[in-house]
Protein backbone atom coordinates (compact mmCIF):
# COMPACT_ATOMS: atom_id res chain seq x y z
CA UNK A 1 0.00 0.00 0.00
CA UNK A 2 1.36 3.37 -0.94
CA UNK A 3 1.31 5.90 1.83
CA UNK A 4 0.28 8.61 -0.64
CA UNK A 5 1.90 11.86 0.34
CA UNK A 6 5.23 10.98 1.86
CA UNK A 7 5.66 12.77 5.15
CA UNK A 8 8.74 13.15 7.29
CA UNK A 9 7.51 10.92 10.13
CA UNK A 10 8.07 7.21 10.39
CA UNK A 11 5.71 5.39 12.77
CA UNK A 12 7.28 2.98 15.24
CA UNK A 13 5.89 0.43 17.70
CA UNK A 14 7.43 1.27 21.04
CA UNK A 15 5.86 -1.49 23.11
CA UNK A 16 2.95 -3.88 23.51
CA UNK A 17 1.47 -5.03 26.80
CA UNK A 18 -1.11 -7.67 27.70
CA UNK A 19 -3.41 -8.02 30.68
CA UNK A 20 -4.51 -11.58 31.38
CA UNK A 21 -7.45 -11.96 33.75
CA UNK A 22 -7.80 -15.48 35.10
CA UNK A 23 -11.55 -15.84 35.66
CA UNK A 24 -12.50 -19.49 36.20
CA UNK A 25 -15.77 -18.43 37.84
CA UNK A 26 -16.86 -16.75 34.62
CA UNK A 27 -16.18 -19.77 32.40
CA UNK A 28 -19.80 -20.84 32.88
CA UNK A 29 -20.87 -17.47 31.43
CA UNK A 30 -19.01 -18.15 28.17
CA UNK A 31 -21.20 -18.76 25.14
CA UNK A 32 -20.41 -22.46 24.70
CA UNK A 33 -20.59 -23.51 28.37
CA UNK A 34 -23.85 -21.58 28.69
CA UNK A 35 -25.36 -23.53 25.80
CA UNK A 36 -23.89 -26.84 26.96
CA UNK A 37 -25.37 -26.36 30.43
CA UNK A 38 -28.74 -25.37 28.98
CA UNK A 39 -28.77 -28.55 26.90
CA UNK A 40 -27.09 -30.95 29.33
CA UNK A 41 -28.13 -29.66 32.73
CA UNK A 42 -26.40 -29.67 36.08
CA UNK A 43 -24.15 -32.60 35.20
CA UNK A 44 -22.38 -30.47 32.62
CA UNK A 45 -22.07 -27.59 35.08
CA UNK A 46 -20.51 -29.91 37.66
CA UNK A 47 -18.14 -31.47 35.10
CA UNK A 48 -16.91 -28.04 34.02
CA UNK A 49 -16.40 -26.86 37.58
CA UNK A 50 -14.33 -29.94 38.38
CA UNK A 51 -11.90 -29.05 35.61
CA UNK A 52 -11.31 -25.38 36.38
CA UNK A 53 -7.71 -24.36 37.04
CA UNK A 54 -6.27 -22.56 40.03
CA UNK A 55 -4.58 -19.18 39.52
CA UNK A 56 -1.21 -20.79 40.24
CA UNK A 57 -1.81 -23.39 37.53
CA UNK A 58 -2.84 -20.69 35.05
CA UNK A 59 0.23 -18.58 35.89
CA UNK A 60 2.56 -21.54 35.41
CA UNK A 61 0.98 -22.56 32.10
CA UNK A 62 3.85 -22.17 29.59
CA UNK A 63 1.82 -20.43 26.82
CA UNK A 64 0.71 -17.78 29.33
CA UNK A 65 4.35 -17.13 30.26
CA UNK A 66 5.07 -16.62 26.55
CA UNK A 67 2.35 -13.95 26.42
CA UNK A 68 3.81 -12.35 29.56
CA UNK A 69 7.18 -12.26 27.82
CA UNK A 70 9.19 -14.39 30.24
CA UNK A 71 9.46 -17.28 27.78
CA UNK A 72 10.18 -17.11 24.04
CA UNK A 73 7.57 -18.79 21.82
CA UNK A 74 10.30 -21.03 20.38
CA UNK A 75 10.96 -22.40 23.89
CA UNK A 76 7.61 -24.20 23.70
CA UNK A 77 9.18 -26.59 21.18
CA UNK A 78 11.33 -27.95 23.98
CA UNK A 79 8.39 -28.52 26.34
CA UNK A 80 6.49 -31.78 25.80
CA UNK A 81 2.76 -31.40 25.31
CA UNK A 82 0.21 -31.12 26.73
CA UNK A 83 1.72 -28.04 28.27
CA UNK A 84 -0.60 -27.89 31.25
CA UNK A 85 1.32 -30.88 32.63
CA UNK A 86 4.59 -28.91 32.45
CA UNK A 87 4.18 -25.72 34.49
CA UNK A 88 7.08 -23.27 34.34
CA UNK A 89 9.02 -23.55 37.59
CA UNK A 90 9.01 -20.35 39.63
CA UNK A 91 6.60 -18.60 37.24
CA UNK A 92 5.06 -15.34 38.40
CA UNK A 93 2.13 -13.23 37.20
CA UNK A 94 4.30 -10.36 35.95
CA UNK A 95 6.50 -10.19 32.90
CA UNK A 96 7.94 -7.64 30.52
CA UNK A 97 5.06 -8.31 28.13
CA UNK A 98 2.23 -7.95 30.61
CA UNK A 99 0.55 -8.93 33.81
CA UNK A 100 -1.87 -11.55 35.02
CA UNK A 101 -4.53 -10.96 37.67
CA UNK A 102 -6.66 -13.39 39.65
CA UNK A 103 -10.42 -13.28 39.93
CA UNK A 104 -10.43 -11.19 43.10
CA UNK A 105 -8.41 -8.55 41.30
CA UNK A 106 -10.67 -8.82 38.28
CA UNK A 107 -13.87 -8.38 40.29
CA UNK A 108 -12.43 -5.34 42.04
CA UNK A 109 -11.79 -3.76 38.65
CA UNK A 110 -15.26 -4.82 37.48
CA UNK A 111 -16.71 -2.74 40.32
CA UNK A 112 -14.47 0.21 39.42
CA UNK A 113 -15.49 -0.04 35.77
CA UNK A 114 -19.21 -0.09 36.56
CA UNK A 115 -20.22 3.54 36.10
CA UNK A 116 -23.92 2.62 35.76
CA UNK A 117 -24.06 0.83 39.17
CA UNK A 118 -25.24 -2.45 37.71
CA UNK A 119 -22.81 -4.72 39.59
CA UNK A 120 -23.87 -5.81 43.07
CA UNK A 121 -21.77 -8.01 45.33
CA UNK A 122 -22.76 -10.19 48.24
CA UNK A 123 -22.08 -8.53 51.58
CA UNK A 124 -19.57 -11.23 52.46
CA UNK A 125 -17.64 -10.93 49.20
CA UNK A 126 -17.61 -7.14 49.36
CA UNK A 127 -15.91 -7.47 52.74
CA UNK A 128 -13.38 -9.92 51.25
CA UNK A 129 -12.69 -7.48 48.45
CA UNK A 130 -12.35 -4.41 50.64
CA UNK A 131 -8.55 -4.51 50.51
CA UNK A 132 -8.63 -4.53 46.70
CA UNK A 133 -11.25 -1.80 46.36
CA UNK A 134 -9.68 1.00 48.36
CA UNK A 135 -11.94 4.04 48.16
CA UNK A 136 -14.22 2.55 45.51
CA UNK A 137 -17.82 2.25 46.69
CA UNK A 138 -19.61 -1.02 46.02
CA UNK A 139 -23.30 -1.88 46.09
CA UNK A 140 -24.10 -4.97 48.14
CA UNK A 141 -27.03 -7.38 48.40
CA UNK A 142 -27.92 -10.08 50.87
CA UNK A 143 -28.61 -13.64 49.72
CA UNK A 144 -32.32 -12.98 49.13
CA UNK A 145 -31.54 -9.89 47.07
CA UNK A 146 -29.06 -11.80 44.90
CA UNK A 147 -31.61 -14.57 44.34
CA UNK A 148 -34.30 -12.09 43.34
CA UNK A 149 -31.93 -10.24 41.00
CA UNK A 150 -30.95 -13.47 39.23
CA UNK A 151 -34.67 -14.32 38.93
CA UNK A 152 -35.18 -10.96 37.23
CA UNK A 153 -32.69 -11.73 34.45
CA UNK A 154 -29.61 -10.73 36.38
CA UNK A 155 -26.36 -12.46 35.45
CA UNK A 156 -24.81 -14.25 38.44
CA UNK A 157 -21.13 -13.77 39.23
CA UNK A 158 -19.23 -16.77 40.61
CA UNK A 159 -15.84 -17.64 41.95
CA UNK A 160 -14.09 -20.65 40.46
CA UNK A 161 -15.16 -22.77 43.41
CA UNK A 162 -18.81 -22.24 42.46
CA UNK A 163 -19.81 -19.73 45.15
CA UNK A 164 -22.05 -16.95 43.87
CA UNK A 165 -20.55 -13.65 44.96
CA UNK A 166 -22.62 -11.11 43.07
CA UNK A 167 -24.86 -10.24 40.16
CA UNK A 168 -24.99 -7.90 37.17
CA UNK A 169 -28.51 -6.56 36.65
CA UNK A 170 -30.01 -5.52 33.29
CA UNK A 171 -29.86 -1.82 32.47
CA UNK A 172 -33.23 -1.85 30.70
CA UNK A 173 -36.19 -4.21 30.95
CA UNK A 174 -36.75 -4.60 27.20
CA UNK A 175 -33.40 -3.82 25.58
CA UNK A 176 -31.48 -6.95 24.55
CA UNK A 177 -28.35 -4.85 24.00
CA UNK A 178 -28.46 -3.88 27.68
CA UNK A 179 -29.26 -7.37 29.00
CA UNK A 180 -27.12 -8.45 31.93
CA UNK A 181 -24.97 -11.03 30.08
CA UNK A 182 -24.18 -8.46 27.37
CA UNK A 183 -23.26 -5.85 29.95
CA UNK A 184 -20.99 -8.31 31.74
CA UNK A 185 -19.21 -9.09 28.47
CA UNK A 186 -18.71 -5.40 27.79
CA UNK A 187 -17.56 -4.62 31.31
CA UNK A 188 -15.06 -7.50 31.14
CA UNK A 189 -13.71 -6.10 27.87
CA UNK A 190 -13.50 -2.61 29.37
CA UNK A 191 -11.60 -3.88 32.41
CA UNK A 192 -9.04 -5.99 30.55
CA UNK A 193 -8.41 -3.32 27.91
CA UNK A 194 -7.97 -0.65 30.57
CA UNK A 195 -5.57 -2.87 32.54
CA UNK A 196 -3.45 -3.46 29.45
CA UNK A 197 -3.43 0.28 28.82
CA UNK A 198 -2.36 0.99 32.40
CA UNK A 199 0.40 -1.58 32.06
CA UNK A 200 1.60 -0.02 28.83
CA UNK A 201 1.66 3.53 30.14
CA UNK A 202 2.93 2.80 33.62
CA UNK A 203 5.04 -0.30 33.29
CA UNK A 204 8.55 0.17 34.61
CA UNK A 205 9.72 -2.07 31.79
CA UNK A 206 8.02 0.06 29.16
CA UNK A 207 9.74 2.28 26.69
CA UNK A 208 10.70 5.58 28.28
CA UNK A 209 8.61 8.43 26.88
CA UNK A 210 10.40 10.72 24.51
CA UNK A 211 10.50 14.39 25.51
CA UNK A 212 7.29 16.14 24.56
CA UNK A 213 5.21 13.12 23.66
CA UNK A 214 4.33 11.62 27.02
CA UNK A 215 0.62 12.08 26.49
CA UNK A 216 -1.51 9.79 24.36
CA UNK A 217 -3.36 11.65 21.60
CA UNK A 218 -5.70 8.94 20.40
CA UNK A 219 -6.93 5.46 21.32
CA UNK A 220 -8.05 3.01 18.65
CA UNK A 221 -10.23 0.22 20.07
CA UNK A 222 -10.28 -3.13 18.30
CA UNK A 223 -11.83 -5.73 20.61
CA UNK A 224 -14.59 -8.25 19.98
CA UNK A 225 -17.42 -6.73 21.99
CA UNK A 226 -20.41 -4.75 20.68
CA UNK A 227 -21.28 -1.86 22.96
CA UNK A 228 -24.54 -0.09 22.22
CA UNK A 229 -28.27 -0.03 22.82
CA UNK A 230 -31.39 -1.22 21.04
CA UNK A 231 -31.17 1.55 18.46
CA UNK A 232 -27.46 1.11 17.75
CA UNK A 233 -26.28 -2.31 18.86
CA UNK A 234 -22.65 -1.88 17.91
CA UNK A 235 -22.49 1.82 18.74
CA UNK A 236 -18.93 1.50 19.92
CA UNK A 237 -16.09 3.61 21.25
CA UNK A 238 -15.37 1.37 24.17
CA UNK A 239 -11.80 2.62 23.72
CA UNK A 240 -12.82 5.94 25.24
CA UNK A 241 -14.34 4.18 28.26
CA UNK A 242 -11.14 2.14 28.63
CA UNK A 243 -9.05 5.28 28.53
CA UNK A 244 -11.22 6.87 31.20
CA UNK A 245 -10.89 3.82 33.46
CA UNK A 246 -7.12 3.67 32.88
CA UNK A 247 -6.73 7.30 33.93
CA UNK A 248 -5.80 8.62 30.50
CA UNK A 249 -6.99 12.21 30.19
CA UNK A 250 -5.44 13.52 27.00
CA UNK A 251 -6.76 11.14 24.37
CA UNK A 252 -9.69 11.02 22.01
CA UNK A 253 -10.78 7.60 20.84
CA UNK A 254 -12.61 5.47 18.29
CA UNK A 255 -13.26 1.76 17.68
CA UNK A 256 -12.57 -0.12 14.46
CA UNK A 257 -14.34 -3.36 13.61
CA UNK A 258 -13.25 -6.22 11.34
CA UNK A 259 -13.63 -9.37 13.45
CA UNK A 260 -10.19 -10.74 14.43
CA UNK A 261 -8.42 -8.57 11.86
CA UNK A 262 -9.37 -5.44 13.83
CA UNK A 263 -6.08 -5.05 15.73
CA UNK A 264 -4.00 -4.91 12.55
CA UNK A 265 -6.49 -2.52 10.93
CA UNK A 266 -6.05 -0.46 14.11
CA UNK A 267 -2.28 -0.70 13.92
CA UNK A 268 -2.30 0.31 10.25
CA UNK A 269 -4.53 3.30 11.00
CA UNK A 270 -2.40 4.25 14.00
CA UNK A 271 0.71 4.16 11.85
CA UNK A 272 -0.95 6.26 9.16
CA UNK A 273 -2.15 8.85 11.67
CA UNK A 274 1.36 9.18 13.09
CA UNK A 275 3.03 9.19 9.66
CA UNK A 276 0.71 11.94 8.46
CA UNK A 277 1.40 14.06 11.51
CA UNK A 278 -2.25 14.10 12.62
CA UNK A 279 -1.30 12.60 16.01
CA UNK A 280 2.06 12.03 17.65
CA UNK A 281 1.15 9.09 19.83
CA UNK A 282 -1.66 6.56 19.26
CA UNK A 283 -2.41 3.49 21.37
CA UNK A 284 -4.26 0.55 19.84
CA UNK A 285 -6.22 -1.05 22.65
CA UNK A 286 -8.55 -4.02 23.03
CA UNK A 287 -10.33 -5.77 25.84
CA UNK A 288 -10.86 -9.50 26.00
CA UNK A 289 -13.74 -11.71 25.00
CA UNK A 290 -15.77 -13.26 27.82
CA UNK A 291 -17.98 -15.04 25.25
CA UNK A 292 -15.04 -17.21 24.21
CA UNK A 293 -14.39 -18.62 27.69
CA UNK A 294 -14.72 -22.39 27.51
CA UNK A 295 -15.32 -22.28 23.75
CA UNK A 296 -13.79 -25.71 23.20
CA UNK A 297 -14.62 -27.13 26.60
CA UNK A 298 -16.21 -30.28 25.17
CA UNK A 299 -12.94 -31.30 23.58
CA UNK A 300 -10.99 -30.51 26.73
CA UNK A 301 -13.33 -32.49 28.96
CA UNK A 302 -13.22 -35.43 26.54
CA UNK A 303 -9.40 -35.35 26.51
CA UNK A 304 -9.20 -35.19 30.29
CA UNK A 305 -7.71 -31.68 30.13
CA UNK A 306 -8.54 -28.81 32.43
CA UNK A 307 -10.75 -26.12 30.91
CA UNK A 308 -7.91 -24.22 29.27
CA UNK A 309 -9.97 -21.29 28.03
CA UNK A 310 -10.26 -19.59 31.41
CA UNK A 311 -8.60 -16.24 30.72
CA UNK A 312 -9.77 -12.95 29.24
CA UNK A 313 -6.95 -10.99 27.60
CA UNK A 314 -6.62 -7.28 26.92
CA UNK A 315 -3.83 -5.64 24.99
CA UNK A 316 -2.38 -2.22 24.25
CA UNK A 317 0.12 -1.23 21.55
CA UNK A 318 2.08 2.03 21.65
CA UNK A 319 2.55 3.67 18.24
CA UNK A 320 4.50 6.92 18.02
CA UNK A 321 6.73 8.95 15.75
CA UNK A 322 10.22 7.63 15.15
CA UNK A 323 12.29 7.55 18.33
CA UNK A 324 15.38 6.27 16.58
CA UNK A 325 15.32 2.84 18.19
CA UNK A 326 11.86 1.18 18.15
CA UNK A 327 10.83 -1.05 15.22
CA UNK A 328 9.41 0.80 12.25
CA UNK A 329 5.95 0.09 10.84
CA UNK A 330 6.61 -0.20 7.11
CA UNK A 331 3.39 1.27 5.74
CA UNK A 332 4.74 0.82 2.22
CA UNK A 333 4.83 -2.93 2.89
CA UNK A 334 1.40 -3.16 4.50
CA UNK A 335 -1.68 -4.40 2.76
CA UNK A 336 -5.33 -5.26 3.22
CA UNK A 337 -7.35 -8.06 1.66
CA UNK A 338 -9.46 -6.49 -1.06
CA UNK A 339 -12.99 -7.47 -2.06
CA UNK A 340 -11.99 -9.24 -5.28
CA UNK A 341 -8.89 -10.97 -3.90
CA UNK A 342 -10.41 -14.40 -3.25
CA UNK A 343 -10.70 -16.08 0.14
CA UNK A 344 -9.19 -19.54 -0.35
CA UNK A 345 -6.26 -20.02 2.05
CA UNK A 346 -3.60 -19.89 -0.67
CA UNK A 347 -5.14 -16.70 -2.10
CA UNK A 348 -5.23 -15.07 1.34
CA UNK A 349 -1.62 -16.06 2.01
CA UNK A 350 -0.44 -14.80 -1.38
CA UNK A 351 -2.17 -11.45 -0.95
CA UNK A 352 -1.15 -10.91 2.66
CA UNK A 353 2.40 -12.29 2.76
CA UNK A 354 4.15 -12.65 -0.60
CA UNK A 355 2.61 -9.77 -2.57
CA UNK A 356 3.46 -6.87 -0.22
CA UNK A 357 6.98 -8.22 0.29
CA UNK A 358 7.54 -8.50 -3.42
CA UNK A 359 6.26 -4.94 -3.91
CA UNK A 360 8.84 -3.80 -1.36
CA UNK A 361 11.62 -5.68 -3.12
CA UNK A 362 11.81 -8.42 -0.50
CA UNK A 363 11.63 -12.20 -0.56
CA UNK A 364 9.69 -14.40 1.84
CA UNK A 365 13.00 -15.56 3.29
CA UNK A 366 13.90 -11.96 4.20
CA UNK A 367 11.37 -12.05 7.04
CA UNK A 368 12.76 -13.48 10.28
CA UNK A 369 9.40 -14.35 11.81
CA UNK A 370 5.85 -14.45 10.55
CA UNK A 371 3.27 -13.71 13.24
CA UNK A 372 0.15 -15.42 11.93
CA UNK A 373 -2.89 -16.91 13.65
CA UNK A 374 -1.10 -17.95 16.83
CA UNK A 375 -3.73 -20.18 18.41
CA UNK A 376 -2.43 -22.59 21.02
CA UNK A 377 -2.56 -26.13 19.56
CA UNK A 378 -3.06 -27.57 23.05
CA UNK A 379 -6.40 -25.77 23.01
CA UNK A 380 -7.43 -26.35 19.39
CA UNK A 381 -6.34 -29.93 18.73
CA UNK A 382 -8.50 -31.69 21.36
CA UNK A 383 -11.49 -29.94 19.76
CA UNK A 384 -10.60 -31.14 16.27
CA UNK A 385 -9.47 -27.74 14.95
CA UNK A 386 -5.90 -28.85 14.29
CA UNK A 387 -2.71 -26.82 14.61
CA UNK A 388 -3.70 -23.48 13.07
CA UNK A 389 -0.30 -21.72 13.04
CA UNK A 390 1.39 -24.84 11.64
CA UNK A 391 -1.06 -24.82 8.72
CA UNK A 392 -0.36 -21.13 8.13
CA UNK A 393 3.41 -21.69 8.12
CA UNK A 394 3.04 -24.61 5.74
CA UNK A 395 1.19 -22.31 3.34
CA UNK A 396 3.87 -19.60 3.53
CA UNK A 397 6.58 -22.23 2.95
CA UNK A 398 4.63 -23.46 -0.09
CA UNK A 399 4.59 -19.90 -1.46
CA UNK A 400 8.36 -19.68 -0.95
CA UNK A 401 8.74 -22.95 -2.83
CA UNK A 402 6.47 -21.72 -5.63
CA UNK A 403 8.50 -18.52 -5.89
CA UNK A 404 11.66 -20.58 -6.30
CA UNK A 405 13.18 -19.38 -3.04
CA UNK A 406 13.44 -22.88 -1.57
CA UNK A 407 13.24 -26.48 -2.72
CA UNK A 408 10.19 -28.59 -1.89
CA UNK A 409 12.33 -30.62 0.48
CA UNK A 410 13.14 -27.45 2.45
CA UNK A 411 9.55 -26.51 3.22
CA UNK A 412 9.47 -27.96 6.74
CA UNK A 413 12.77 -26.33 7.62
CA UNK A 414 11.52 -22.98 6.26
CA UNK A 415 8.31 -23.25 8.32
CA UNK A 416 10.32 -24.04 11.44
CA UNK A 417 12.87 -21.28 10.88
CA UNK A 418 10.34 -18.52 10.15
CA UNK A 419 7.46 -19.69 12.32
CA UNK A 420 6.77 -20.52 15.93
CA UNK A 421 4.44 -22.69 18.00
CA UNK A 422 1.05 -21.16 18.77
CA UNK A 423 0.58 -19.86 22.30
CA UNK A 424 -2.39 -17.51 22.28
CA UNK A 425 -5.47 -18.11 24.38
CA UNK A 426 -8.80 -18.40 22.53
CA UNK A 427 -9.26 -14.66 22.24
CA UNK A 428 -9.47 -14.30 18.47
CA UNK A 429 -8.26 -10.73 18.08
CA UNK A 430 -5.26 -11.45 20.36
CA UNK A 431 -4.34 -14.63 18.50
CA UNK A 432 -4.34 -12.79 15.17
CA UNK A 433 -0.65 -11.86 15.03
CA UNK A 434 -0.59 -9.26 17.82
CA UNK A 435 0.04 -11.86 20.54
CA UNK A 436 3.62 -11.86 19.25
CA UNK A 437 4.14 -8.11 19.41
CA UNK A 438 6.14 -7.95 22.64
CA UNK A 439 8.54 -10.58 21.29
CA UNK A 440 8.63 -8.84 17.90
CA UNK A 441 9.65 -5.54 19.50
CA UNK A 442 12.27 -7.32 21.61
CA UNK A 443 13.64 -9.28 18.65
CA UNK A 444 13.82 -6.16 16.49
CA UNK A 445 15.58 -4.05 19.13
CA UNK A 446 17.69 -6.17 21.50
CA UNK A 447 17.54 -9.35 19.40
CA UNK A 448 18.88 -10.24 16.00
CA UNK A 449 15.74 -9.83 13.89
CA UNK A 450 15.59 -7.54 10.87
CA UNK A 451 11.94 -8.01 9.94
CA UNK A 452 8.70 -9.45 11.32
CA UNK A 453 5.54 -9.65 9.28
CA UNK A 454 2.21 -9.51 11.11
CA UNK A 455 -0.58 -11.34 9.30
CA UNK A 456 -4.17 -11.36 10.56
CA UNK A 457 -7.42 -12.71 9.23
CA UNK A 458 -11.00 -11.88 10.15
CA UNK A 459 -14.04 -14.12 9.65
CA UNK A 460 -16.47 -11.56 8.28
CA UNK A 461 -18.74 -14.34 6.97
CA UNK A 462 -19.77 -15.25 10.52
CA UNK A 463 -22.07 -12.22 10.59
CA UNK A 464 -23.91 -13.57 7.50
CA UNK A 465 -23.68 -10.28 5.63
CA UNK A 466 -21.09 -11.57 3.16
CA UNK A 467 -19.16 -14.70 2.31
CA UNK A 468 -15.93 -12.70 2.37
CA UNK A 469 -13.12 -13.03 4.85
CA UNK A 470 -10.82 -10.16 5.74
CA UNK A 471 -7.11 -9.80 6.20
CA UNK A 472 -4.36 -7.31 6.96
CA UNK A 473 -0.59 -7.57 7.02
CA UNK A 474 2.07 -5.16 8.17
CA UNK A 475 5.84 -5.42 8.06
CA UNK A 476 7.85 -4.36 11.09
CA UNK A 477 11.50 -3.59 10.57
CA UNK A 478 14.52 -2.91 12.74
CA UNK A 479 15.03 0.81 13.15
CA UNK A 480 18.06 1.89 11.21
CA UNK A 481 18.52 5.27 12.84
CA UNK A 482 20.67 7.46 10.68
CA UNK A 483 19.72 5.54 7.56
CA UNK A 484 18.66 8.39 5.30
CA UNK A 485 16.99 6.05 2.84
CA UNK A 486 14.98 4.54 5.70
CA UNK A 487 13.97 7.93 7.03
CA UNK A 488 12.42 8.94 3.74
CA UNK A 489 10.44 5.72 3.62
CA UNK A 490 7.01 5.49 5.24
Amino acid sequence: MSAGTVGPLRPVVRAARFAIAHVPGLVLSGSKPRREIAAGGEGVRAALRERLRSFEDAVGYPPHQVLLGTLAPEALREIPRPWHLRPVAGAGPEGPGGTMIDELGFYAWLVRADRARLVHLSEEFAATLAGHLGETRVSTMNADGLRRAVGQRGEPLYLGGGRQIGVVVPAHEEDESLAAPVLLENLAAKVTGALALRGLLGSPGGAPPAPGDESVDYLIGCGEEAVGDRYQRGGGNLAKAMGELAGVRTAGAVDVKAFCASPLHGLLLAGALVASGVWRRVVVVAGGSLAKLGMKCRGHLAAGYPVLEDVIVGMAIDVAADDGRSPVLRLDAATVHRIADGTAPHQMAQVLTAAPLRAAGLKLGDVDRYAVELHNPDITEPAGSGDVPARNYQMIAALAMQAGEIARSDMSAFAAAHGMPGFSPTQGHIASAVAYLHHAVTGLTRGSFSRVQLVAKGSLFLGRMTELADGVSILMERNAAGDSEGRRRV
Partner: protein
Amino acid sequence: MIDFKDKLVLALGERDGIPAPALVACAESAGGRVVYAATECFV
Protein backbone atom coordinates in the same frame (compact mmCIF):
# COMPACT_ATOMS: atom_id res chain seq x y z
CA MET B 1 -13.42 -37.37 -9.90
CA ILE B 2 -16.59 -37.71 -7.83
CA ASP B 3 -19.88 -37.48 -9.71
CA PHE B 4 -22.40 -35.36 -7.79
CA LYS B 5 -25.14 -35.58 -10.45
CA ASP B 6 -28.59 -35.70 -8.77
CA LYS B 7 -26.96 -35.27 -5.36
CA LEU B 8 -27.89 -32.66 -2.80
CA VAL B 9 -24.84 -31.11 -1.14
CA LEU B 10 -24.30 -29.52 2.27
CA ALA B 11 -21.12 -27.43 2.00
CA LEU B 12 -19.57 -26.76 5.40
CA GLY B 13 -16.40 -24.72 5.04
CA GLU B 14 -13.75 -23.71 7.54
CA ARG B 15 -11.86 -20.43 7.69
CA ASP B 16 -8.36 -21.91 7.97
CA GLY B 17 -9.19 -24.83 5.71
CA ILE B 18 -11.46 -24.78 2.66
CA PRO B 19 -14.09 -22.03 2.72
CA ALA B 20 -17.67 -22.78 1.65
CA PRO B 21 -17.59 -20.88 -1.69
CA ALA B 22 -14.74 -23.11 -2.86
CA LEU B 23 -16.65 -26.23 -1.83
CA VAL B 24 -19.75 -24.96 -3.63
CA ALA B 25 -17.78 -24.32 -6.81
CA CYS B 26 -16.35 -27.85 -6.73
CA ALA B 27 -19.68 -29.53 -5.94
CA GLU B 28 -21.55 -27.64 -8.63
CA SER B 29 -18.88 -28.30 -11.24
CA ALA B 30 -19.36 -32.01 -10.49
CA GLY B 31 -23.12 -31.75 -11.07
CA GLY B 32 -24.32 -31.42 -7.46
CA ARG B 33 -27.01 -29.09 -6.17
CA VAL B 34 -25.86 -27.19 -3.10
CA VAL B 35 -28.77 -26.73 -0.69
CA TYR B 36 -26.79 -25.23 2.18
CA ALA B 37 -23.42 -23.55 2.41
CA ALA B 38 -21.72 -21.87 5.33
CA THR B 39 -18.17 -21.11 6.41
CA GLU B 40 -17.42 -21.31 10.10
CA CYS B 41 -14.46 -20.30 12.21
CA PHE B 42 -13.54 -22.66 15.03
CA VAL B 43 -11.02 -20.47 16.78
